[in-house]
């Protein structure tokens, strides 16, 4: 009976087929991207956003420390002075230009670490695709979060004497 497979071989064949058969009734591990998206981990580093305070003022004070920390030289910041008639951030200074070149960015998160006001945060968005290189440069408008419900858009007109500090007072500067 030399034409018949050996007994052991047949066993293994069915073992394999059994696994296949079994998995047909298991819950699939793949998701139907892009219709279905898997949640990212809490420390995931996706595209940056620029945060706002609840009153709508921008957290960014235009200090350029993110740009200094950036190993890929992806960030460009230019700052200007706040006035009470045209206030963008609580301090003296705000970023009048804020650009991140997402083609250069290596998503290391150093900018986040360097930020003294927790203005720049690498969020969950990883869906970055561009049809030209200029589109990869995210401007301040694209990075800023929308104005919170109870807030007002920037620039705001505020009464004098409220924002007297150079940088907004932080709860725990030792952190």
């Amino acid at each position, binding site marked *: 009976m030399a034409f018949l497979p050996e007994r052991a071989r047949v066993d293994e064949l069915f073992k394999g087929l059994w696994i296949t058969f079994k998995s047909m009734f298991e819950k699939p591990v793949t998701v139907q991207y892009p219709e279905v998206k898997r949640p990212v981990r809490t420390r995931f580093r996706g595209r940056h956003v620029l945060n706002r305070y609840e009153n709508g003022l921008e957290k960014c004070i*235009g*200090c350029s420390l993110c740009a200094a920390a950036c190993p890929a030289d992806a960030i460009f910041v230019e700052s200007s002075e706040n006035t009470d008639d045209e206030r963008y951030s609580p301090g003296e200074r705000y970023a009048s230009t804020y650009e991140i070149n997402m083609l250069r960015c290596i998503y290391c998160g150093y900018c986040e670490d360097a930020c003294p006001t927790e203005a720049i945060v690498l969020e969950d968005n990883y869906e970055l695709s561009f049809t030209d290189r200029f589109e990869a440069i995210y401007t301040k408008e694209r990075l800023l979060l929308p104005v919170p419900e109870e807030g007002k858009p920037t620039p705001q007109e505020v009464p004098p004497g409220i924002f007297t500090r150079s940088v907004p007072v932080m709860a725990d500067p030792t952190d």
Partner: protein
Amino acid sequence: MTNEVTLTIDGKQVTVPEGTLVVDAAKKIGIDIPVFCYHPKMEPVGMCRMCLVDIGRPVRDRDSGEIVLEEDGSPKIQFGWKLDTACTVPVSEGMVVEGMTEKVQQGRQEIVELLLTSHPLDCPICDKGGECPLQNLTMAHGPGESRFIYDDKINFEKNVPLGDLIWLDRERCIQCARCIRFQEEIVDDAVLEFFNRGRATDIITNSEPGFDSYWSGNTTDICPVGALTTADFRFSARPWELKNAASICSHCPVGCNMTYNTRREAKSGGDIVIKRAMPLQNEWVNELWICDKGRFAYHFSDSEARLTQPLIRKDGKLTPTSWEEALALVADQFKNAGEGLLTLVSGRLPNEDLFNLRKLTEGLGGKSGLHSYMAGGDLVAQVGLGAGSNLADLGEGDAIVVIACDLEEEAPVWWLRVKAAAERGAKLIVANPRPTKLERYATEIIRYAYGEEVEAVERVAPLSEADNLVVFFGSEGIGLETSEALAQACANLVAELGRVGQPNNGLVGVWPRANTQGAWDIGFRPGFDLAEAKVVYIAGADPVGDDPALAETIMQADFVVVQELFLTETAELADVVLPAQAQTEREGTFTSGERRVQRFYPVVQPRGEARPDFDIAAQIGAKVGLALKGRFPSLVNPELCAETPGYEGLTYQRLAEVSDQWPIVGRGDLYYGGTGYENKQGLGVQLAPSGGYKVSKVSRQDIEKPDGEVIAVPITLLYDRGGMISPSEVLHPRLPEPFILVNPQDSKLLKTTDGMVVGISINDGETSNVVVWEDERIPAGTALVPRSMGVAINRPSTFEIRIAEAAAA
């Protein structure tokens, strides 16, 4: 000679002259003792206590006076029981200084902790952040943690404008008094002072307008924290983002070395722009300082009003055209003009440009002229300062004469250095018809009437006793003719002493422009006849703006070409206007009033289609069949140096040579000498005077002065309303309204009152509005009219006050 003293600092031996402070002795051997209040250019005060060191001295036996030895034979050292401040203790023989011991480290830590008790955490937005001595020294010597409670920080007022140019942040101030001491000791404008005591100590300005000084910007350089910042640079970049390029200030004949900090800017459409001007150390020229005009009046280069395209007159209107068309037309006209060509330049142009313009003019057989209200550059070339001169070397036994010149207004840094020389004991003779600030330091004041400048020089007592003699002559109250006579009289004064060519001896012209001396050296002379010219070629000068009466004369010419940065009043009359590059956009050399040739470098990209003047001349040359070097100034320079007397042997390489300078400044040492820049780009070369001057009697031309009438005389101000300063908006609040100064007596005679706005017409010319300010110090019979302030005046003139017209206007 001073005695030398040997001491040991941190185990290293150093020998320094007696009287040297421990902190300086340490710096000389590369040991950094941290300082905040100490500055090597100022007297020590020991206010901040940061420079604590442990100082030990050899013990001497009380009876014999012998040094007591240890058992091993080394001298026994007695250390003090408290730490000393290294900035107030002079060195002594055998001294042992310890700066690294735990005791010292702990002392410094506590000082830093104390300084930071109420220092805000503004570093992220502070303009000083990144080049801040407090930041750096806290990192190096700070405790890392504070025992003080953060919430206990006292908040003071922030953003206090001390003046129009300088902002004060009271919280950041550590009360080192560097700014106050600078204003008092170095520039003698004691406009800053401390107010209140203890924690409430505050810097205030006691002048009206606030911080009324030509030197205010320097206080921001030496401020060891971000308490003083300039309005110009405010928040525009972080220091580490800036690139720097060395340059030479283009505003006055001192030739201060500067660094322009640049950055690519989105606001300016992605162009590289100048963000600030900082001093560059050159102990032979400007030491560590620059005046506010040099620091803030660079905005002419980025002005929107700059010409960017060649213009050509079509149907009576200037219309943009191509370089090709403009140059072809110019070359055509020049070829036909021949002898009828007149090339007119000013001292604003660099040497290379002047050289090419002269070669072009000579090649075509034309004439050339220098637009200047001062003469005597040829004499300065003969009897100017000897090579190797340094005003900082002048002191006891030396003499300085300053005549017809308000030195602080005309050449501020020379004022500062002459003042310092007088303080070191130099004899200072100031001759001027009215009091000037320099007179505070004069050993002798000569007061003369306007028009008697030459007599005033003759009244200077014989100076044969003096070891060295430097004579400055300016343009106070004189026109071109008198200037020539005055220069000759001054040259006689220098030559009579017989030390022409020796260092620290010679004549210095306080010229109206940065390179007027270079223009003279290259062969341009004032005293040309505009009326004879058929074709006028004007580069870097605005004769019509200075004297509207010249408009008609210029219009008589068949063809006028103007090469300029802006559409000046002269350019508006031109047939062709060629856009030139600003000094910040190209390379070149300037020759200062001390005849130091210095090199400047390109800082920003050229504006529009603007081309450098030397290249335009070369391109015109190519079209008329003259082979001139163009493209790069470094190609022109060798020819220039070969053909210009006195410039032989100069090369760009030699101009770029540097040597060690004291005090040490620069990035790693900014806590010590301030944020000014270390000179790595060249100190320049001082030319030797040619000599050969023979003392001769001065032919004098007195001004005509009808009896009983008041004469208008021109004076020069630092802040005028000229085309190079007015594009800088930051300075606008500091620029005075057009005014004239008269004696109260004369004011009565003219039927004016103090502060009255009147129309003034010089020599029956156009009427312009000015404010009349009465001043008792003005000699009776004269009205002082500032140059470049909207009133055309170039020599003592008759004038008329038109009260009615001013009211109408």
